[in-house]
């Protein structure tokens, strides 16, 4: 198949060696690349019940057949491992230019295994692969690390790096690239830290060949102009994700004060217009005409961001309406190597524990100083907040308002104001996640009634298949395109005929494979649950006043979901389903 390089670079950190092997093309046919193919490698190569922070865990960097080509919005990289935050399978997605660079260097994937005795960084320049000492970089932030590596290896290299949070194996540690782009969730940075791998530096100068370059180039150009750069997608360019702040506030789904409310009085101080007022420039990922990145400078602090997730979870959810403080929080998280979603949630949870007198963390909603200090302390593991929401709730209580699923903290969407979103959180392969399915676009932000379970199971199943397929090609989730178009592009790239139906089947196969991994790790239906607050505590303000998601309704929706999926009542795929999907 064209579009693939056909090569995998394997790094053995135990022995500080590397080798090149063929990409498993049989798996590529069934799982494409990106999320799906990385998960297949993880599933096959990890023994069950591996400690995620042990040398036996592996980290897989996977590109897709579309990576590096002229297909718009194809600049993302999957990074997968077993998650130290959740013990589930974990795949993260990171933008910038690193994915293309890996492919131009001559690899579809990089598999990292073992653990280096001392801190190292991996330096790849096409076929030249070296592991070098990172002793001088250990303890440094991701920004200083990237600047140092660019000064050492050349300004054109692309870098993936962890900060102190990853080194300290904090379960909300992320991996950073180009200062402000993250593989954010599930503690992927902690996995990298556990391997004593500080950074990965890549320079690639080769090309990517596809089956029909003439036709692909022509079609990609046409699709970009007519489809990508249309009113359906241009919000990403004009505003970026901050546009969602006001949308969420208007529909009562803006997480506020640890999900105690769905509206925030100070929303207009942190919404898109406020961000645009301090925006200095725009930046996009490789091949993306949408360029969602807002480069802002508040005079005090500089960041590419803040994204909606940070404005909501690190803003309203902590009771913070000071944009300058949120920008500083964002920059701190990026530099220290922390996921803003999990960090913001943990601080918000500690604020509520303090407010309720359960445990005094000396943190108050709206307290900017305390919030910024807590962020630094989490990265340095100098506070129990580094346990994350689940860990804290197990130690001190407050489980009913510990906003997490399977150990992963909630993103910025209130499930009581979009019931399908609750199902999406409960059934996502890596815990509470908004990128496996985003039904809120059809519910609170769309035409469907948000306060019913009617049609939601089917909606979530469909979206999970759609996203799994899209994230495996790899395309960015901000581009709303049809699977028919994805299939057309994939066919021109690979030379293998793909249809919309094929992609739906592949999407379903990926969802089921991830489920099988999690079942192997001991997860079942009882883990597909939301915290009690969602079931029992009604919201008080705005469009979601008096609303909750009753537990019996949730359970009904979950049962229907299992049924549609062909899973048994324990949430396990049946033998027939696995046969049907050829897993």
């Amino acid at each position: 198949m064209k579009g693939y390089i056909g090569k995998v670079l394997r790094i053995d950190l135990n022995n500080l060696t590397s080798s090149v092997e063929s990409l498993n093309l049989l798996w590529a046919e069934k799982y494409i690349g990106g999320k799906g193919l990385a998960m297949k490698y993880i599933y096959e190569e990890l023994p069950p019940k591996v400690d995620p922070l042990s040398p036996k865990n592996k980290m897989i960097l996977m590109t897709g057949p579309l990576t590096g080509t002229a297909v718009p919005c194809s600049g993302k990289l999957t990074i997968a491992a077993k998650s130290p935050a959740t013990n589930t399978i974990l795949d993260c997605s990171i933008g910038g230019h690193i994915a293309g660079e890996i492919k131009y260097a001559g690899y579809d994937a990089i598999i990292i295994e073992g653990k280096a005795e001392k801190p190292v960084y991996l330096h790849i320049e096409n076929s030249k692969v070296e592991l070098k000492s990172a002793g001088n970089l250990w303890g440094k932030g991701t920004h200083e690390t990237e600047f140092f590596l660019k000064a050492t290896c050349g300004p054109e290299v692309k870098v993936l790096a962890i900060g102190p949070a990853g080194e300290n194996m904090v379960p909300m540690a992320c991996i950073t690239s180009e200062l402000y782009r993250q593989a954010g969730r599930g503690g992927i940075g902690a996995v990298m830290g556990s391997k004593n791998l500080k950074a990965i530096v890549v320079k690639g100068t080769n090309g990517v060949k596809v089956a029909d370059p003439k036709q692909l180039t022509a079609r990609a150009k046409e699709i970009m102009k007519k489809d990508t750069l249309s009113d359906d997608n241009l919000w990403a360019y004009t505003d970026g994700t901050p546009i969602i702040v006001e949308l969420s506030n208007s529909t009562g789904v803006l997480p506020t004060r640890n999900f105690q409310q769905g509206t925030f009085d100070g929303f207009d101080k942190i919404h898109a217009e406020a961000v645009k007022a301090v925006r200095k420039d725009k930046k996009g990922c490789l091949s993306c005409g949408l360029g969602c990145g807002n480069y802002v400078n508040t005079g005090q602090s500089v960041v590419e961001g803040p994204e909606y997730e940070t404005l909501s979870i690190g803003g309203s959810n902590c009771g913070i309406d000071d944009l300058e403080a949120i920008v500083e929080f964002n920059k701190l998280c990026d530099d220290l190597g922390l996921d803003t979603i999990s960090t913001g949630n943990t601080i918000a949870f500690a604020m509520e524990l303090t407010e309720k007198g359960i445990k005094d963390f000396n943190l108050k909603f709206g307290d900017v100083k305390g919030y910024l200090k807590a962020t630094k302390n989490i990265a340095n593991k100098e506070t129990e907040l580094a346990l994350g929401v689940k860990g804290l709730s197990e130690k001190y209580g407050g489980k009913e308002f510990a906003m997490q699923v399977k150990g992963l903290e909630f993103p910025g969407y209130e499930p009581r104001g979009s019931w399908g979103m609750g199902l999406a959180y409960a059934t996502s392969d890596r815990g509470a996640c908004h990128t496996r399915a985003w039904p809120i676009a059809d519910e609170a932000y769309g035409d469907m009634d948000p306060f019913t379970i009617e049609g939601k199971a089917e909606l979530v199943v469909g979206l999970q298949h759609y996203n799994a397929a899209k994230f495996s090609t790899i395309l960015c989730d901000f581009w709303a395109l049809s699977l028919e178009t994805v299939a057309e592009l994939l066919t021109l790239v690979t030379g293998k005929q793909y249809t919309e139906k094929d992609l739906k089947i592949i999407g379903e196969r990926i969802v089921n494979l991830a489920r099988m991994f999690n079942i192997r790790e001991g997860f079942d239906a009882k883990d597909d649950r939301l915290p009690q607050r969602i079931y029992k505590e009604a919201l008080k303000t705005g469009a979601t006043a008096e609303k909750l998601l009753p537990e019996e309704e949730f359970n009904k929706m979950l049962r229907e979901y299992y049924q549609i999926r062909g899973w048994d009542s324990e949430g396990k795929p049946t033998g027939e389903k696995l046969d049907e999907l050829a897993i």
Partner: protein
Amino acid sequence: MKLSLDISRCIGCKLCQIACSAEKEGVYQPTAARLQIEKIYTMQGLETKVAICTQCLDCVEVCPTEAIKYENGMLTYSEEECTGCNECADACPQGVIVVKADTVGICDSCGGSPECVNWCPHGALTFGCREGGGVG
């Protein structure tokens, strides 16, 4: 007639380079493009590094075989006449002449409708007689 880049409209997506390499080399390879534009973070902040053909004509000047010519406001290149001496690439102050096995790749403005410009999603790259040209 030459290329110009309006930095304030550039998002650093590199579609220009991808399009250039596809058009000229039939492969997607940004380093094989006849222009290089990158948005990059430095200690000073977000900067745009630009290398595009400014039609300074140094390449025309140094070419020993007249393989590179300047005609009707554009560069032309004849592979038959090129000896692969690479003197043009050495002379190019922008570093946008691509060195290949026995030949070179010159920005010939795609004959008047440059693919980099056609692809540029937000009109940052333009082609024409705009006064001054170059980067702004």
